[in-house]
């Protein structure tokens, strides 16, 4: 058994990214690509033992590593994963591999920098998922934004400046408040930044509510929850395909992960008090955003809104309390939905990217009859559209179904509102699919489209296997999270007042 698996998961892609940068200018672009692919593949492979060697019988943190970092302030390089965060480390490394492939020929300028940005970001994101020290988490959490800013800012679309400023405005306030919360907790916990110590720290309700608000400001923007979601469609529209894939598949998950790792266990009483608000905002996201997605004319915006709506299921599932207890269907459903959304949204953005590379437009109206020219692509796109609509046997079904089942056990009308996604989700996804893919060849540009190449086929096929695999055998993902989820439910049920 290899020690330091988590450090490997973090630093392998970062080191690989630095090596890629070292290849220099675009004359070595091919070397950069190959090196990046090797780094991403290695980065993914080192995360696999996290799953295979994971102890599903015992709770708590596994693969822990702890060294003093800034001893004077008692800040530690402390890593560890439970059955929840482990999945996201793997998902993130998996997505990075696909993203490197997705940018293979598409990115022609500053290739090394592009690939390096993704690799470094991948390592930093793994760090955020694995960190058990608040400062370490905060550093990773903030640092991972830098590559994303660069990706949108350098390789993005025409309105990239507006998009990144909007994103900046949104995140700044929240992050600062989170830091304030950490500092407060540091003193309360007797000069410690240990996240696990915060979990057991008794806190009065007022303090809990203030901490809740501080965390909420930070994580709700990331998820994003209504009404702090409007940065996401803009960011997606401007980001290159790979950026959108990571943004949707991974970055959004960090917000939801924050609620799981920080909000629920650190301030359980405040979570209970404010659960109604979280549930209400989540349901607004599901219904309101679902309807907004319906009227989008830009494919990327549509899928971005669809992401917000699907993330609404995650936050809904996380805050369904029956009395003191969180509902296991809902919590596990939310986590399943997070993983599934990682596959499905990445696939949807990939599909849009494939079409964009050919026609250089994301407007639904510029397409029509794509299936006539790209039958293989159309088949993949249909599978992912169906997964996005929550069709059983795809991963998209499992999470939604579980959260609806859980919601019904807490409040029938919450389940009722959530279940409307069966209708709206199918409506916005398949209506777009109809206008883009079906019909006769709409114009001379569509007539010139060529079907997917081998590289695109490979990416779509890998994602298809995941989407179907998770839909047909979700147990594979769920069995590793049971103990951690049960611990969380038991922990949150205890008052900390």
């Amino acid at each position, binding site marked *: 058994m290899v020690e330091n698996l988590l450090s490997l998961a973090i630093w392998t892609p970062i080191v690989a990214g630095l090596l890629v940068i070292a290849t220099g200018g675009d004359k070595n672009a091919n070397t950069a690509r190959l090196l990046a692919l090797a780094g991403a593949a290695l980065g993914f492979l080192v995360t696999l033992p996290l799953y295979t060697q994971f102890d599903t019988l015992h709770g708590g943190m596994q693969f822990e590593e702890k060294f003093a970092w800034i001893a004077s302030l008692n800040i530690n390089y402390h890593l560890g994963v439970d059955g929840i965060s482990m999945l996201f480390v793997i998902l993130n490394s998996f997505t990075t591999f696909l993203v490197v492939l997705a940018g293979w020929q598409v990115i022609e300028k500053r290739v090394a920098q592009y690939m390096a940005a993704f690799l470094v970001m991948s390592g930093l994101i793994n760090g955020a998922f694995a960190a058990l020290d608040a400062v370490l988490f905060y550093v990773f959490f903030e640092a991972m934004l830098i590559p994303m800013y660069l990706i949108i800012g350098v390789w993005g679309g025409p309105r990239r400046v507006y998009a990144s400023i909007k994103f900046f405005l949104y995140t700044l306030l929240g992050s600062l408040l989170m830091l304030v919360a950490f500092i407060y907790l540091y003193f309360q916990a007797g000069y410690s930044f240990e996240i696990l110590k915060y979990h057991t720290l008794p806190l009065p309700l007022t303090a809990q509510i203030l901490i809740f608000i501080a965390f909420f400001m930070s994580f709700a923007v990331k998820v994003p929850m209504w009404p702090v979601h409007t940065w996401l469609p803009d960011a997606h529209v401007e980001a290159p395909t790979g950026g959108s894939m990571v943004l949707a598949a991974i970055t959004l998950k960090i917000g939801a992960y924050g609620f799981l790792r920080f909000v629920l266990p650190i301030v359980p009483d405040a979570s209970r008090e404010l659960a109604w608000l979280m549930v209400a905002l989540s349901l607004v996201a599901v219904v309101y955003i679902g309807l*907004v997605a*319906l*009227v989008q004319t830009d494919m990327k915006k549509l899928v971005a809104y669809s992401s917000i709506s699907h993330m609404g299921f995650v936050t809904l599932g996380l805050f369904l309390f029956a009395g003191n207890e969180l509902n*296991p269907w809902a919590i596990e459903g939310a986590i399943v939905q997070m993983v599934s959304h990682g596959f499905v949204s990445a696939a949807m953005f990939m599909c849009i990217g494939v079409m964009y590379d050919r026609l250089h437009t994301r407007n639904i109206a510029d397409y029509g009859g794509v299936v006539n020219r790209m039958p293989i692509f159309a088949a993949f796109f249909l599978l992912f559209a*169906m997964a996005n609509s929550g069709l*059983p046997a795809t991963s998209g079904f499992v999470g939604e*179904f*579980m959260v609806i089942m859980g919601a*019904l056990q807490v409040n029938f009308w919450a389940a009722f509102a959530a279940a409307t996604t069966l209708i709206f989700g199918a409506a916005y996804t398949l209506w777009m699919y109809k206008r883009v893919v*079906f019909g006769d060849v709409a114009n001379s540009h569509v007539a010139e489209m060529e079907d997917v190449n081998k590289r695109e086929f490979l990416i779509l096929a890998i994602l298809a296997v995941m989407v179907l695999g998770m839909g047909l055998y979700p147990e594979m993902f769920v069995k590793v999270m049971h103990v951690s989820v049960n611990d969380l439910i038991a922990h949150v049920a205890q008052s900390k007042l």
Partner: protein
Amino acid sequence: MEMKSLYLLIALAPLLGSALAGLFGWAIGRRAAHVATIAGVMVSAIGSAYTLNYLLNGGEPFNGNIYTWLTVNGIEYSVGFLVDNLTAMMMVVVTSVSLMVHIYTIGYMSEDPGYQRFFSYISLFTFSMLMLVMSNNFVQLFFGWEAVGLVSYLLIGFWFKKPTAIFANLKAFLVNRVGDFGFALGIGMVLYHFGGSLNYTDVFAAAPALKDATIELIPGSTWSLMTVTCILLFIGAMGKSAQFPLHVWLPDSMEGPTPISALIHAATMVTAGIFMVSRMSPLFELSDTALSVVLVAGSITALFMGFLGIVQNDIKRVVAYSTLSQLGYMTVALGVSAYNVAVFHLMTHAFFKALLFLAAGSVIIGMHHDQDMRNMGGLRKYMPITWITSLIGSLALIGTPFFAGFYSKDSIIEAVHASNLAGSGFAYFAVVAGVFITAFYSFRLYFLVFHGEERWMKVQHDDHHHDAHDDHDHHHGLGPNDKPHESPWVVTLPLVLLAIPSVFVGYIAIEPMLYGDFFKGIIYIDHEAHPAMATMAEHFHGAAAMTAHALQTLPFWLALAGVVTAWFFYMKAPQIPAAIKRMSGPIYTLLENKYYLDDIYFALFAKGSRLLGMGFWKVGDQALIDGLLVNGSAKLVGLFSRVTRKLQSGFIYSYATAMIIGVLGLMTLWLSGVIAR
């Protein structure tokens, strides 16, 4: 062979065929694609027949899991099979009709460029439908439920260049999703209130104790748990089995190729709702309210959809409305707790309606894809096999004694007659009046197509585009010198094979299925509360006696009257229908516009939700959140910085003034006691 392996083979063989034809169709070619899929379905059909025979001869029903799909809260949710008599009967119906349709497709789709794709889809459908009927739990049922919906979507939109086809398939999927919305919530109710398991056996065992359980959905008003659960589940059935008001997708589904109209939109998929409610009889029996809802929905569908069949001129649409009406009959039977009668009619209907659809398809081939009955006539001379088999199918449909439909439909009417459930009075009127209507539109079709004047000789072919040959579906109509011709044997053989059960299956099956042990322990009926089946059993003295007795019953004479009226109107005095059409102005317009339901739904739901979405987007997201909050706070920061910039003017006197004002202000507050001294 172990039965579990056999059942796995039955389910998976069509999936394998589908994968071969779908993924490798481009490599293996057309012939191999149909050989592979037909072989797969043949394996399933033989296996299903073997299974039914095995069970009828005392074999043990099977109820077991294949693998654990999900574990939550310590409870396992598995993929598994329940194979009892009900399942086995469904398996035989599904696989045998599917096999016929597969063979038929060789002829019907022979010129279509999507040949392999079509075979792949229909085999995938067979797999999905088998997973649905063979399931032993609610999750897998829902999987099959939505999977058949997916394949239906793919097949309605098979000719994806046709705007009407891709409108119809989206509509079908979304209307079905409305049903599934209810169905999913129904499953949620079962999961939450029936002990945490979703296995049929466990749920049905828990049900009786919950008969009088109530829940408070709205604070202060209590509802019967069983009623709410059953109605939610039934909403799913309304979508899939096209019951009013969720029926609107089925007529439009005729945009798909005819073989799938026969397989999916007549014989099998649309009966999934009927099958589901029958399977859930231990639940539905516990709520009279839910049964009344079922009964009324079915009655409305049976009668009012029949009316629409009268005014259609498209041959497929007549059969489609007939299907709607017949599904209504089955639902009525469910409502009066005559589940076995519903399933019995499901079976007989599967054979004769598949036959009628495939015969209509044969006519359409003969007419070179002209579907308008006004352009047909006299085809019996040119298409003898299609003619005879159509006649058999029509006779079965209208309930002619000794034909299959007679036993099932008459039993439904008698069951409604014997019921005392709220709504059964209206239902009885609906199903009896429906007999006349059914006979009328069926023989209207029959006479218009096969008898009378050969109108196709006179049709003007202004809209005839021979240049659009690759638009396989758009060129239609016979050329000036063409004559209709009988279809090839691959088309006519399935017609003949389906005609056989359309005649005999009712006579053979009525006794075991309705009054024997066939459904013993599977379908549960509370005979005290719902005595319809028990009353009928008292009056049943064998199929032969029932046939003989038919001549003394109202339905027989109504059916005859329908046939005679159709003959008189369309053979003898064709000016009468035209005159009626003129005189009945608004009613005719209402029928022709399908009661305006399509228009109302489109305006209300399709346009309404887009309007709402546009409002949320423009007002909520753009004006309020972005305009006011985001850009507003950006402006606020800007404003603040402008103000503070002015403060830092660098002029001593402005600093001094500010200081003096501040000190004065603080002193005032101090003196007035606002700040503690």
